């Protein structure tokens, strides 16, 4: 299954289109990632959202990208993107 970031006219205004608009309001800055900890889930990450304390974010580290919750001392230059949605199966 592929999620096209650019919307075609066909789905514009349809339920699928509106759902995509809600989950991915800014296609050019939004990335879908998977987390090794939760294999079935998908992280929706927006690089254009300003990072803030308490938000879940993806951090750039020397050992690769890491999922983290931002505390009060976070370094914004290390923030790769902010997690805006987590899509997962109900447990």
């Amino acid at each position, binding site marked *: *299954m*592929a999620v096209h*970031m650019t919307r075609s006219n066909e789905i514009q205004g349809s339920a699928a289109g509106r759902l995509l608009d809600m989950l991915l309001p800014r296609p050019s800055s939004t990335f879908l990632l998977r987390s090794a900890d939760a294999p079935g889930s998908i992280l929706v990450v927006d*690089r254009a959202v300003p990072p803030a304390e308490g938000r879940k974010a993806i951090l750039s580290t020397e050992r690769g*990208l890491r999922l983290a919750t931002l505390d009060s001392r976070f370094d914004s230059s290390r923030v790769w993107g902010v997690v805006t949605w987590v899509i997962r199966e109900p447990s």
Partner: protein
Amino acid sequence: MGHPGAVLKSCADLLALCDCNNFFVSCERLFRPDLEGRPVVVLSSNDGVVISRSNEVKALGVKMGEPYFRVRSFLERHGAAVFSSNFRLYEEVSARVMACLRRFVPSMEVYSVDEAFLEVPPEGKKKPEEWARDIRAVVLTETGIPVSVGAAPTKTAAKLAAERAKKRPETGGGFALLPGEPWDDLLREVPVEDVWGIGRRWSDFLRRRGISTALRLRDAPDDRLEKHLGIRGLRTAWELRGIRCFPIEEQEKPQKSIQSSRSFAVPVRDRESLAEAVTEFTLTAGRRLRSQNSLAGSLSVSISTSRFRGSFFGARAEVALENPTDSDITLIGAAAGALSSIYREGHDYEKAEVCLGSLSSAGTVQLSLFGKREDRGAALSRAADRLNGEAGRRLLLPAALLGEKEWHPRKDRHSGMGLEDLETLPVISGEK
């Protein structure tokens, strides 16, 4: 001779080139911050030659197009990360960069996978360099791809400006080349072969006549330029004078011919394998044909052995198609016919190419699955394009192409990552 530079007056009309830095390498680094500061290269399909280099690799002296086997151990010693090319990822990243740019300009021309010419909006013309740096910052934030932006009155000059922005860190990735003294100084420093559209073909000729820099090219007399380089060469010189000859072409121009070719991972001897490869290349070309809404009037197939091993054999056959078509079924049939007319047994084939020519517009023909035989083929091909596009990979393909093929390109170091196929999303580690 009057100084042609005198024609430079205002910069009311500004355009800009946005050029992605080391694009394929930047794409591979997007989800790999651990590769920041490390040498990284991307290899051509089949892992043959180096096609993208990080700055660290450039500093080590590895050239573009260097055969990988020649630099392999050197790169290993320097701890380089080596990737097979992942063109699907590069195209997906490119689409994001272009979508991001589109929001900030009234019009633009996607010039290649990693370059776009932009019309500078009115607010950008007042302080073009600041505007260029702003664009760079937005693209980097949103897409994660570093770019260089060069603003100038003409495309040819914007190319030079972007190159300057890329080479000089003090520009902050944005540089404006405006009429006046700095313009001449920059042109004086640029070797003539580095001017857009000049290249090796003309530079040898020009250098023999003492035209060794962009400045000398600009100041060469028009009649000589036109006589020796033709109208394209003359226009290039004019563009260096600040006269716009090449406008921004918003509409993607349909290509005049479509080629699909590859070198094989291992030499191919038998007819059947070669036919499979040719079928595969025909499908690739057919998909591109339909995506630009064209029909092909002719098809040619070329096959060749290695130029470096044994005696060389190469052959080409062209088939004129009865009716212009975009049907895979017709194209594959024509390609098979062309191949059997040139195939000779006993050779180790290393490369095959399929080329669609005599292209015309498909217009707005209504396609029906129940129409003429030819229309059915075209409708089926389009249905396959849509399905495969939605799946993000090839779900529907001729049965002949199923299974592992020995001639498929080597991709030993493929990152296997994509942005849109849910099966290949980048995986990251959790909170611990």
